[in-house]
């Protein structure tokens, strides 16, 4: 399969995502440029972390209007796989490709820390390789990752299984303290109703090598590879 990783002005983890995919996972991955409309024949498009447009106004609000986002919206409407990590998640929400919004962390400060995630739905293209309830250690690093969605919408999402990842304590239990950014219902990652667009605040591309502290992020990439087959 082929991956495309978008660079917006201010993207930061674009290079890391390409590195994780190419050098660590041995994948065919191409960089995509925000001013282009072509998706380079990608089977899965990744919107990476960073501070697109400096995160000015609202995170992701300005990047959403990049030329490439039109193609990505079309690609998603056609069922193509799209994953937004951190800033990419914020962009997907702003672009209405995912429900909800991301606002400032409860603590109002940036948090860089390895957290425990619980896989809430393993029946998706992004978690296929995992068991439901599996626990992952993956880092977060963001200032605005508090997930919000209207109550009824979130309830429907939960029922449909769109809440894919949740912040939990290291023993797998839900806890206020483990929900570092204060997200509603400790939501860490969600999918759209069709389950082809996925956004998450944690950074799987920073959890693919033992030397850098763990490999649980690979599970997501492996799932996508499996799904694309």
């Amino acid at each position, binding site marked *: 399969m082929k991956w495309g990783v978008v660079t917006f*002005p*201010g993207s*930061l*983890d674009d*290079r*890391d995502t390409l*590195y*994780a995919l190419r*050098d660590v996972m041995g994948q065919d991955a191409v960089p995509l440029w925000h001013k282009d409309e072509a998706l380079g024949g990608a089977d899965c498009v990744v919107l990476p*972390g*960073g*501070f697109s*447009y*400096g*995160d*000015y106004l609202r995170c992701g609000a300005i990047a959403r209007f990049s030329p490439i986002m039109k193609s990505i919206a079309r690609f998603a409407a056609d069922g193509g796989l799209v994953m937004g990590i951190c800033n990419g998640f914020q962009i997907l929400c702003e672009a209405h490709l995912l429900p909800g919004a991301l606002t400032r962390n409860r*603590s109002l*400060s*940036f*948090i*860089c*820390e390895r957290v425990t995630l619980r896989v809430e739905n393993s029946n998706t293209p992004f978690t296929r390789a995992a068991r439901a309830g599996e626990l992952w250690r993956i*880092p977060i*690093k963001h*200032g605005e990752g508090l997930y919000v969605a209207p109550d009824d919408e979130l309830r429907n999402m939960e029922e449909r299984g769109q809440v894919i990842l949740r912040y939990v304590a290291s023993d797998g239990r839900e806890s206020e303290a483990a929900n570092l950014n204060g997200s509603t219902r400790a939501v860490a990652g969600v999918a759209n109703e069709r389950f082809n667009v996925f956004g998450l605040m944690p*950074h799987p*591309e*920073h959890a693919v*090598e033992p*030397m*850098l502290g763990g490999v649980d992020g690979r599970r997501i990439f492996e799932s996508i590879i499996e799904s694309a087959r």
Partner: protein
Amino acid sequence: MSAPVALPGEPAVDRDLAAAHGLTADEYERIERALGRTPTYTELGVFSVMWSEHCSYKSSRRHLRMMPTRGARVVQGPGENAGAIDVGDGWLAVFKIESHNHPSFVEPYQGAATGVGGILRDIFTMGARPIASMDSLKFGSFDHPRTRYLLSGVVGGIGGYGNCVGVPTVAGETMFDAAYNGNILVNAFCLGLVRRGELLSARASGVGNPVLYVGSATGRDGIHGASLLASAEFDASSEAKRPTVQVGDPFTEKLLIEACLEAAKTGAIVAIQDMGAAGLTSSSSEMAGRGQLGIELDLDRVPLREPGLTPYEILLSESQERMLIVAERGRVPQLERIFAKWDLHAVEIGTITDDRRWRVRSGGKLVADIPVAALTDDAPEYDRPAKAPSKPARMMNRATHKIPSPRQALRGLLASPNVASKRWIFRQYDSIVQSNTVLGPGSDAAVLRIKGTQRGLALAVDSNPRACAIDPYLGAIATVCEAAVNVAAAGARPVGITNCLNYGNPEREEIMWQFVRGVEGIRDAALAFDAPVVSGNVSFYNETEGRAIPPTPTIAIVGVLEDCHRRVPQFFSHADDAILVVRSGRPGFASSEYAALFGSDDAELAPIDLRRERALVDTLVDGAQRGLIRSCHDVSDGGLAVAVAEACFNLEGLLGAELTLSPGFDSAIDLFGEGRSTVVVSAPAENAPGLTEIFRGAGLEITAIGRVTGTARLRIGSVIDEDLRELQEIYERALPERIGDR
């Protein structure tokens, strides 16, 4: 050619106006001599910034020449935007540390943020991609009403800028002491990597080559930021003199990094320098000066943020995120295209000339015409009088009658903001972006891998103002030793040093004495470790209302790990491992945190045997490379007991330790004293004999003092028996509680 003319509305230039610009009568005469006439108002402004302490190093230059700057690995020593060391496999590490003390005291968030922005530019102007930052911070005590505000502002600014440009902040140090109540220190370090042969320079060449202005437009920010703010003491009138605060734009900086690195690949860049202190003036004159050439600028072409800026303002503005490039003739369009791709201006504003003059035009008129050398090499240089004070300074209290129990001492130390966990700070920093961080903040040194190789780099930054206050020479040596041992503790060989010398007013002879002794100390230690000083920064006038900070040389050391897999963390990781202590000398209380908390009459620093310090570093590196050492933590603030507790606080799983105290390890001084370099090592029990042999062979004292246990208790002889969870809680909560962050 006719002389530059005064512009309408400009004040007449005379000795008084020069004095108001911070120039002495002598200096003013020198200017008249250099020009052969009275300077224009614009020229006076230019001289005042270029001859300021901050830009000219006039009080420090002659002493800095003492530093060892050459070595087999040194590719670029001091004199460029940053130094460069060959770290193997075709890679150069480019690094530097710089202060942003005064701006951070005035406006902590923006001051610290723009400090990070400035040091980043020093690195990528060398053609190197910045891969890691560190920050060394000194605040006043928590009793002081501004400390919390300054702390959250500074940390917010460092994170706000560093996180947004995508350079991980991987280590640092933070100290709180009333001596910094009126003058905080914010020193920012950055390191970048560039392939050998692709290093850029700030030396202009090629008469007729175009000069390009790239990056943000120029506004009125920071006019006289360098000369007035950083080159004079703070007092009540500083308020009025305050220049417009500079606001950083990390987003633009990120674009500038990518655009400049892409432009560097074209080979069309002849020279490049960032517009830091004294902005356009210093970057243009210094690049011309290094190349023994001249430069001509047309201010009408400079992109402006607001209309109506005068030549004086444009030349002295310190607006952020701007660079000056000397390009190869005919290749401007190619560079313009790259900057346009990143939505940045690139405007041709001048030319390199052969007449060694710095010439500036505005509105078709000549507004400045100065020999380049007068602004650079021939700027004043002083040999200021230096004299030791009659009685040595001291930051500690005398001993009290209430001597704490070992348990109270340990708990008190762990709760002291100087010892306590700095997680509240470093978790606000992205420490993992770029996927190189093998060991992040929280360990003695950070370790970064170099992708595509087995190699790693270890980084540490240290300072020890309490020791420097007692003896500025020994204190400086101790600081270098601590940084070197921190790097070696991680398994890396120290290969290069950068330093930021923070002192008071150099016009006072005891301050000048502290400074000179500090430089001598760094020189001697750098020689001993064979780690040349390749870059640095001097920050004088760190005083408020006549009260100087303690002498604070900040030392950052870069080390090389041949095999990154052999890096050593500071945390115990296996129950039943042996715990050993290696000492290069005896501990004492003189500059210790224990003395700061509980008082002590111990007033003298122990002598330092640099050969033993070197042996310690070499042996640690050797032991790590042979895979004999599982963890290594240096004993610093809080002494041995605290170091052992910290080694237990492994986030991946708390462990315990049981120490059997032998004579020589059982007194308060052994447990809490801080002395010459000492490390706590853990290793599989079967490695203990081998380790003992290599350390003894190197002439060092090594003692097995206990073992790692699987239960989270800390037992030290019969004097301490504590639940480590409780201790960790104290250690982790101390800072957030003081800050008032639930």
